[in-house]
């Protein structure tokens, strides 16, 4: 009996017991669709996390942070200079493995005002024009300030969309995109001219949602209640995107002269940088580049180790760990449900062969061998698993849509081809395993006993 024949017989047998087979398949269908659905959710989560990682500058970006002086250098504490522009110039000149150096001076509690509206800026930073590249900003209106603006310490700023939304009104309120370039705002009482605005940063999903919402006609009868506060983050897209959207950049020198003067004790502005970001030229030489930067900085810091590097690698590692554990736990649960489906198949196959003992006896009497019967029963079980697996693939589509419908998150579930293949192959394996014992039992039957069986 060849395999094709066995498959045909298997289909016929399943077709003869439609309802029973359907119930049996349900276990496999649920197992496969939950396996794929789980992996789609995790994949969506992973995509969201990677988007955030790229939004803060990718893995090749490294931040220099101040660190407590180690114990063995405590006596040198008063000679520690902290992170200054000297470091920036030294790195630029002496660390060829570093591609980009961006100094930042950050001021907390900065409040921007315009025409009676107030916005507390989350990320008020004096920096160089190359911060644009370092922090993956894109200017939508106007321009980024340049070196001349910086050298002349001009009172110019580039703002994120949330600042615009809060001070001038968001597109939702105004009904159109307001271009704030050329307007003047006060930051800590100092007037600044807006010369540019960044684009809106958001996750892929909230972008899609926003575009969809744009297509819909606006709801005419809006309520009379005051508009709800959306908090600092504005709409959509997690912490990273909210932070990026609530940014105001001004030239480094402007920050230093306008806002740092009062901090120094002798009218010399405090020269220390809040952070210093560097970008590694080649990720493959990441460790070497960090070592090189460390060596350079040890010179400028008089050998005092009052700094440390914060890499995004830790973040990337954390993402991988989170994904891994989510995948593991979800995978185990889905695998168990598939296994339960397999037990269902085994159960029904055992019942089926008990019903067909006489048939098996007849088949053996007219010449079916052990292998013939074994394959026939095994194929039947595999056919159930294959049909169930295929139906599970279809059901997973519906399941994923349902999931994203009932609990919309920023991370759209993504069905991957790999997940489908793995789930399908797994279901077939379950079918084979579930069929083994019933097939063995059937094939072992003694033809005389089986023929006498009533």
């Amino acid at each position, binding site marked *: 009996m*060849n395999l094709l024949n066995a498959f045909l017989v298997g289909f016929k047998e399943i077709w003869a017991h439609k309802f029973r087979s359907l119930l049996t398949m349900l276990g496999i269908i649920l197992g496969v669709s939950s396996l794929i659905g789980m992996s789609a959710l995790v994949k969506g989560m992973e995509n969201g996390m990677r988007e955030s990682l790229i939004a803060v500058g990718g893995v090749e970006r490294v931040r220099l942070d101040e660190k407590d002086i180690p114990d063995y250098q405590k006596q040198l504490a008063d000679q520690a200079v902290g992170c200054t522009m000297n470091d920036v110039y030294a790195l630029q000149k002496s660390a060829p493995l570093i591609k980009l150096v961006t100094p930042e001076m950050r001021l907390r509690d900065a409040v921007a005002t315009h025409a009676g509206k107030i916005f507390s800026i989350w990320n008020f930073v004096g920096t160089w024009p190359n911060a644009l590249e370092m922090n993956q900003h894109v200017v939508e209106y106007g321009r980024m300030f340049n070196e001349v603006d910086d050298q002349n310490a001009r009172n110019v700023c580039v703002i994120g969309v949330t600042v615009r939304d809060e001070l001038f009104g968001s597109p939702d309120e105004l009904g159109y995109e307001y271009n704030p370039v050329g307007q003047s705002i006060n930051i800590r009482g100092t007037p600044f001219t807006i010369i540019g605005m960044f684009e809106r940063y958001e996750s892929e999903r909230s972008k899609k949602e926003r575009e969809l919402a744009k297509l819909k006609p606006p709801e005419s009868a809006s309520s009379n209640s005051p508009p709800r506060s959306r908090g600092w983050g504005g709409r959509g897209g997690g912490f990273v995107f909210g932070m990026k959207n609530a940014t105001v950049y001004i030239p480094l020198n402007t920050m230093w002269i306008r806002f740092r003067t009062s901090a120094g004790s002798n009218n010399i502005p405090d020269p220390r940088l809040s952070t210093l970001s560097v970008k590694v030229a080649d990720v493959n030489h990441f460790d070497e580049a960090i070592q090189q930067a460390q060596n350079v900085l040890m010179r400028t810091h008089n050998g005092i180790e009052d700094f440390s590097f914060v890499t995004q690698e830790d973040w990337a590692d954390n993402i991988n760990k989170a994904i891994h554990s989510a995948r593991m736990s979800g995978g185990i649960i889905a695998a168990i449900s598939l296994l339960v489906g397999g037990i269902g198949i085994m159960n029904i196959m055992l019942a089926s062969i008990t019903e067909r003992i*006489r048939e098996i006896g007849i088949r053996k009497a007219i010449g079916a061998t052990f292998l013939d019967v074994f394959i026939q029963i095994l194929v039947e079980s595999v056919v159930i698993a294959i049909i169930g697996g295929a139906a599970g693939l279809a059901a997973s589509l519906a399941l994923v849509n349902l999931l994203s419908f009932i609990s919309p998150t920023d991370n759209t579930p993504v069905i991957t081809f790999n997940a489908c293949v793995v789930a399908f192959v797994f279901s077939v394996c379950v079918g084979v395993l579930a069929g083994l014992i019933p097939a063995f039992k059937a094939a072992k039957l003694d033809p005389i006993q089986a*023929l006498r069986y009533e």
Partner: protein
Amino acid sequence: MALIELRNVSKVYHLGGEEIRALDDVSLDIEGGEFISIIGPSGSGKSTLMHIVGCLDSPSQGTIKLDGTEIQNASARDLARIRNQKIGFVFQFFNLLPKLSVLQNVELPMIYSGLPAAKRREHAMEALRMVGLENRSKHRPMQISGGQQQRVAIARALVNNPKIVFADEPTGNLDSHTGERILELFHQLSTEGRTIALVTHDPEIAAVTPRRIEIRDGKIAEQVDRKLAGLEAKFSLGKAPAP
């Protein structure tokens, strides 16, 4: 050389420490083309004899030659092949598969001998024609009468051109008239040169065969061969003359 040669064949069962000799030192020859009956009351060992000669079972002792090869030590796999190629079975309860059509039932032995589908169909139709049921090929077993079902079973037993056909109480589940028709069919097949063994408890049925082997308590009690006895091997049904 005989088609089937049994030499000192015994079959012993152990039931709760008790030894049951279902067959006790049986020696028997069956020639090709013979029409025989194996007769005996239930429990006499005639079924065991049929199972052993039919390769469904193996003897505890003794040798069996079927078509020139010894089979008493054959593996289950070899026995299955011999059953498929050289032996046909007809059962009291027809034993057709209810989910398959008449034609598919007849095709079944050829599926296990690995014949291509076109050949299977051709041979199956031929066998159905032999038993006069070629116009019932699409029916299910449940849609035809008992006698017709038994004819289908006979067609299935013949389809692989076996050396010998065993019929185990073939008329036991049929009314007497239909039973006679079935016996006529066997007789006709016998005249065409087939080797047929009827297994029955009914002396009237056994009387239609030229040769009769009576089994009692696992032993051959009596063998009557009308040809050897100079009697006419006349085919008659129901009212066979006493030997």
